[in-house]
């Protein structure tokens, strides 16, 4: 004859089991969908990229040849890669000036305008952002045409420069020419963010500082910029992390990374290696280097800049 267990005891045992084990799992169940998404679409590709960087593979062949650190060693001794690395930094430096410093400066100046004037000004500034990048790049190809009919050469001609400049095929001018296009596209968007950040600074703070004698540069340096810092940091971070991506399409449309790699950067070089030369292992090694570099950037920003930023917590 089976022994009957009282139902109250079963209930108590279930509760204890739930409190001991299941309850701890509940938070994980809540975050599981998002976590799975991130694992599948972010961490798995990253891990796979890292794995492929130790192989020689052309994407479609079943067999992948294990080559150990060979791809990294080749990268280290590849003069083209060193050139591309330096140029990537130049692209970023240009971007820091053109789509971080300049939009903030313009936003500061725009604060002097009336609301109606600001509306018009920000519409004009934002206009390039809505143009598809490939279309913009094609229009700029015409601006850079190396004849007197190209816009820039026509302007130079007015100032007596009769020999047209070969903007996109000259190694000295190709990189700045391409960088100008991507920065022209993005600047308006960053201007809007900067303007919104500046407008969000409490007016009473500014008035109090003004009454206390803070004027002009002193007001900007000691009141506006510290309060604006979170927005400024955001603009800087997205520029540094996405600066090379902004310029990808203009490079693809205008120079293909040339002449002789003079306008190439890490992002486009990875694309070339992976999807034009089909050397997935080498492209993955470049990607790992790039991820490490940008991870380092992000960490440095966090350590050096974030602690100086005053958040309204």
């Amino acid at each position, binding site marked *: 004859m089976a022994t009957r267990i009282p139902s109250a005891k079963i209930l108590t045992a279930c509760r204890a089991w739930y409190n001991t084990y299941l309850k701890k799992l509940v938070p994980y169940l809540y975050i599981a969908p998002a976590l799975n998404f991130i694992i599948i679409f972010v961490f798995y590709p990253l891990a796979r990229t890292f794995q492929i960087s130790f192989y020689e593979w*052309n*994407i*479609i*062949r079943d067999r992948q040849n294990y080559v150990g650190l060979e791809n990294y060693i080749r990268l280290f001794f590849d003069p083209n890669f060193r050139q591309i690395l330096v140029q990537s930094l130049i692209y970023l430096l240009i971007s820091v000036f053109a789509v971080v410093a300049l939009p903030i400066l313009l936003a500061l100046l725009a604060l002097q305008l009336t609301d109606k004037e600001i509306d018009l000004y920000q519409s004009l500034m934002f206009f390039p952002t809505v143009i598809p990048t490939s279309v913009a790049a094609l229009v700029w*190809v015409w601006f850079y*045409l*190396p*004849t*007197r*009919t190209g816009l820039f050469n026509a302007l130079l001609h007015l100032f007596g420069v*009769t*020999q*047209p400049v*070969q903007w*996109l*095929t*000259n*190694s000295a001018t190709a990189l700045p020419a391409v960088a100008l296009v991507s920065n022209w596209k993005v600047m308006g968007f960053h201007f809007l963010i900067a303007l919104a950040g500046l407008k969000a600074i409490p007016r009473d703070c500014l008035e109090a500082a003004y009454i206390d004698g803070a004027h002009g540069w002193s007001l900007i340096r000691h009141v506006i910029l510290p309060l604006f810092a979170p927005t400024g940091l955001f603009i800087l971070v997205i520029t540094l992390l996405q600066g090379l991506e902004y310029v990808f399409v203009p490079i693809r449309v205008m*120079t*293909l990374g*040339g*002449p*002789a*790699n*003079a306008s190439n950067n890490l992002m486009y070089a990875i694309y*070339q*290696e992976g*999807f*034009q*030369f*089909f*050397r997935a292992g080498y492209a993955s090694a470049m990607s790992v280097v790039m991820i490490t570099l940008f991870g380092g950037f992000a960490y440095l920003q966090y350590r050096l800049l974030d602690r100086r930023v005053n958040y309204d917590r």
Partner: protein
Amino acid sequence: MKLRLLLSLCGLVSVFSISTAAAQEKITIEYWNINTSTFGGPQVDALIASFEAKNPNINVESRPKDRYDTLVQDAQTAIAGGNPPDIVQIGWPYLRYTSATLPYISIESLVEKYGGAEAFADIPKNIFDLTLVNGEHVGLAYSLSNAVVYYNPELFRKAGLDPDNPPRTIQEWTEAAAVFKKALNLPLIAIDYSGDNWAIENLIASNGGNLLICEADGTFAAGVSSPEAVEALQTWADWVAKGYAVNALDQARTVFWTGQAGALFWSIAGRGAITSNKTFDELRATTYPQFGDKPTRLPTGGNMLVFFASDPARQEAAWRFALHLVSPEGITEWTKGTGYIPLIPKLAEDPKYLASFYAENPIQRVATRQIENMIVWTSFPGENGLAAGAALFRAVQAALGGQLTAGAALSAAAKEINDLIGNEPCSGTSR
């Protein structure tokens, strides 16, 4: 009783409809090509329409891409994803890469399964065999072109040059360019190049050089640092440095058709595009210039049709579509709309096909005259072949931009190419 009869009739009608539908089920195939709306796109659409009219059960979808490298890149990605395109125009420089890497279906295998060999009877053997690698045809030779020099007679006259006697040699072009520059302060020459080595191979091969040589041990080595190659590239670089030539990648064509340069070194396949875009009245063309008395050697431009369809029904449909493209009617449409040299040369004399067109388009005859000078467009071998081609392209740009002399740029390129192609054997190709 009536109800039963009605139900039986309905059943019969349904069965009949289903079987008819199955018999008429449409097969859709994808045709990947480089024919955008300004470069042969309308002709592709017309060819598809005429094919579909004859084959109502086959639907062909055109998928134009802007360049050959994009086409190969996208095809490779689609193949890797298990969804290969059915039929793809693959540029000649990708022949060896396709042979070594992509899962193509050989022409021999298609003929064995579906027949159609008689369609190639009139295609010259040297042209048909352009796709031959390791004893089998990787694809079906389709678009053929060679380089010609288009020129603007009006600008020639303004500069004091004789448009009826255009330069014939590199030396004559250099002298004419000096006169042109002095008279109009414009470059005479625009050479269209972008992303591949066709333009430089025209010059190097015509000077007697080769991009690739077969060593005594039976392996390939780069030939790009030979004296002939260096002289050819230095000539082009000197033209640019002196302002005789504009260095504008594929914008060279825009420079020419807006009247900012007197002549354009480009493919005969661009005739249609130039004719519809030029801003001046008369367009003429002459043969590609010789280095001294050396005969020109012109790499064959254009593409082959390569088959990747794995499903038998789609494979057969793709094959039937290809046979339509290389039929006399298909070739006629293609040549008229683009400028490509007809795959069957005798069509140019046939009143039923291209005779009247050739009579009205003397430029087309220039390219036909050069058929005997056509050679295979070099494709670098092995899995690193595409990277090797890019190394040469960078060297050309470095020399044209004045960063390096032609000798230094090509020596560095030769070393890089040799490192990349390793010890690839040079047997078994049509070269």
